[in-house]
C-alpha cells in the first residue's frame, strides 16, 4: 500500500499459514493503516477469515494450524515467544460473524470483559457499561432491560451488544469477521454507521462478503484470491482504477 505519512500499526511479513497439509495463506505481506477501515474481500475460501484470525492469535486454539512469518502490532511481533496472548486479544477486539452473547444478562455481557481484566469498582464498571451501551445505540432501545437475558435481544441488537462488549475493554483494533452477514439491512446499516464513527479512534479491519458494503465504508481494500493477496489499495484507486485483471473481473462480478 502506498500510503505515505501514516504510521502503520499492523504489518504482516512473509506470513504463511497451513492447516494440516493445506497451504491456506501464501506469503502475505501487508501494512494496514491506522484509524481507517480496511476491508478484506475475495471469494469464499480465499483465506480472508484465516488472515483476520491470525491477527488476534485465534488459531492458537486449533492445533492443526501452523503459522510462520511475522505479524507486527505496534512494533511487537505477536507471534514472538513469550508474548502474552491475552494482551494480544485484549488489544484486537474481534467481532464474530454471528453474534454470540454470553449466557448472562445484558449488563453482565458488557461487564464481563471489564471484570476479567481486573476492574473491581462497581461504580466504574457501571459507568463503563452504560457508556458503551449508549455508544452502540442500545441503551435507549433496551433501557430498563439491562438485567434481562442477552439471549432475548434481537440478532441485530445482539451484534451491537457484542460490539459494546468488545469495545468496553478498550481494544486498539477492531476485527470484524463478516460481522453483518447475519443481520437484516437496518441492523447492518446501524453497525456500518458505528464503524464509520469508530474509525476516528480505532483501526478497523473487516472481512466482508459484500462488495457493496466495502464500497460504502472502506478506506482501503485488500483483495485476496486462493490464499494470496492480489491487490491492496486505497478504496478510490481500487474501485476506479484497479491494476490487476483479476480485480477487474471480480469487481465486474465475473466470479464471486
Amino acid at each position, binding site marked *: 500500500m502506498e500510503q505515505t505519512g501514516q504510521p502503520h500499526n499492523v504489518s504482516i511479513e512473509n506470513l504463511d499459514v497451513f492447516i494440516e497439509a493445506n497451504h491456506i495463506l501464501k506469503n502475505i505481506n501487508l501494512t494496514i493503516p491506522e484509524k481507517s477501515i480496511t476491508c478484506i474481500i475475495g471469494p469464499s475460501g480465499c483465506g480472508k477469515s484465516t488472515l483476520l484470525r491470525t491477527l488476534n492469535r485465534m488459531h492458537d486454539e486449533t*492445533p492443526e494450524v501452523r503459522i510462520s512469518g511475522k505479524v507486527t502490532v505496534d512494533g511487537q511481533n505477536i507471534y514472538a515467544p513469550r508474548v502474552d496472548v491475552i494482551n494480544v486479544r485484549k488489544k484486537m477486539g474481534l467481532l464474530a460473524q454471528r453474534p454470540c*452473547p454470553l*449466557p*448472562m444478562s445484558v449488563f453482565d455481557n458488557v461487564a464481563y470483559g471489564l471484570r476479567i481484566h481486573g476492574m473491581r469498582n462497581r461504580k466504574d464498571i457501571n459507568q463503563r457499561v452504560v457508556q458503551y451501551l449508549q455508544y452502540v445505540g442500545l441503551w435507549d432501545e433496551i433501557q430498563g432491560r439491562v438485567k434481562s*437475558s442477552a439471549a432475548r435481544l434481537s440478532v441485530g441488537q445482539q451484534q451491537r451488544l457484542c460490539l459494546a*462488549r468488545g469495545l468496553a475493554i478498550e481494544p486498539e483494533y477492531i476485527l470484524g469477521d463478516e460481522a453483518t452477514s447475519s443481520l437484516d439491512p437496518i441492523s447492518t446499516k446501524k453497525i456500518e454507521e458505528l464503524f464509520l464513527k469508530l474509525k476516528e479512534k480505532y483501526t478497523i479491519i473487516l472481512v466482508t462478503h459484500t462488495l457493496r458494503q466495502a464500497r460504502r465504508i472502506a478506506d482501503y481494500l485488500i483483495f485476496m484470491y486462493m490464499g494470496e493477496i492480489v491487490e491492496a489499495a486505497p478504496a478510490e484507486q481500487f474501485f476506479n482504477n484497479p491494476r490487476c485483471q483479476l480485480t477487474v473481473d471480480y469487481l465486474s462480478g465475473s466470479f464471486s
Partner: protein
Amino acid sequence: MRLDLKKKEERFFIVLMIISALLIMSFLGFILGTILYKGLPALNLDMITKLPGGGFYLGKEGGVLNAIAGSLMITVGSVIISAVFSVPLVMYINFYLRKGSFFSNAIRFSFDILFGVPSIVYGAFGFALMVYLGLKASLLGGIISVSLLIMPVMMRSFDEVAKLLPHNLPEALLSLGSTKYEMIKVLLRQLMPALITAVLLSVGRGIGDAATVLFTSGYTDNIPTALGQPAATLPLSIFFQLGSPVEEVQNRAYASAVILTVIILVLSFISRYFSAKYSKNKI
C-alpha cells in the same frame, strides 16, 4: 396405485408410532398402578417417620425411616463425589484436549464401558476393595460403590451436552481475552441445566440400585450416625420385606416402593425448577 401404496406406507408407520407410544405409557401406568394399588393401603405416616420396631418384619409396628435416611445419605454422598470428578473430567476432554485426540477418545471409551458394567459388578468390586482396606460394610462403603456406579452415568450425560455447546461461545470468550479457566466458568453457566439433568439421572440410578449396596453398605434398623456404620437402603428394604412370608410385610414392600418413587419424583421436580431457573440466561 403407486400413490395409494405410499399413503398406506405412511399410515402403517403412523400406527406403529402411536402403538409404541401407547405401549410405553401403559408400562409406566401398570408399574405405578401396581405399586399404588398394593402399596397405598399399607402406606401411613408411621412408614416414613418410624424406624422398624421389634418384629417389624413379622408384621408388627414400625416404618422404613432407616432405609429412607440411608438411601438419601448414600445418594447425596455419591452424587457429590461423582460431580467432583465428572465436572473437571468433562471440561478437560471438551475444552483442553484436542477434538478426536487419542486421549479423549480413550477416556470416552472407558466411561462408555463403565456405563454398561452391571451394578452387581460394582458391588463385588466395592466389596473386594473394602476387604482389602479392612473396612466393614458401612455408609462409606455404600457411598464409594454407588459413586463408581453413577459416575459414568453423570459423565456421559454431561459430556453429551458439553459436546453440543455452540463453538462460537468459547471463541467469543477467548477473543475477549479470557483464560481457559475463566472461559470454562462461563461455559458452566450455559451447561448448568445439563449438569442438573446429569445429576438427576445419576441420582435415579443410584438411589434405586440394590446390587451395589448389597455387600457394601450392609443393613441396619437404625439411622447411621457415622461413615463407618452400616446403612439401610430402600431397595434392600423392599427386597427384605418382599421376601417375608407375612402378607402385611409384603404390602409394606410396595408402600416402600411408593416412597422410593415419590422421592425420585420430588427430586425430578426440584431439578426441573432449578434447570429452568438456570436456563434463564442460556443462549
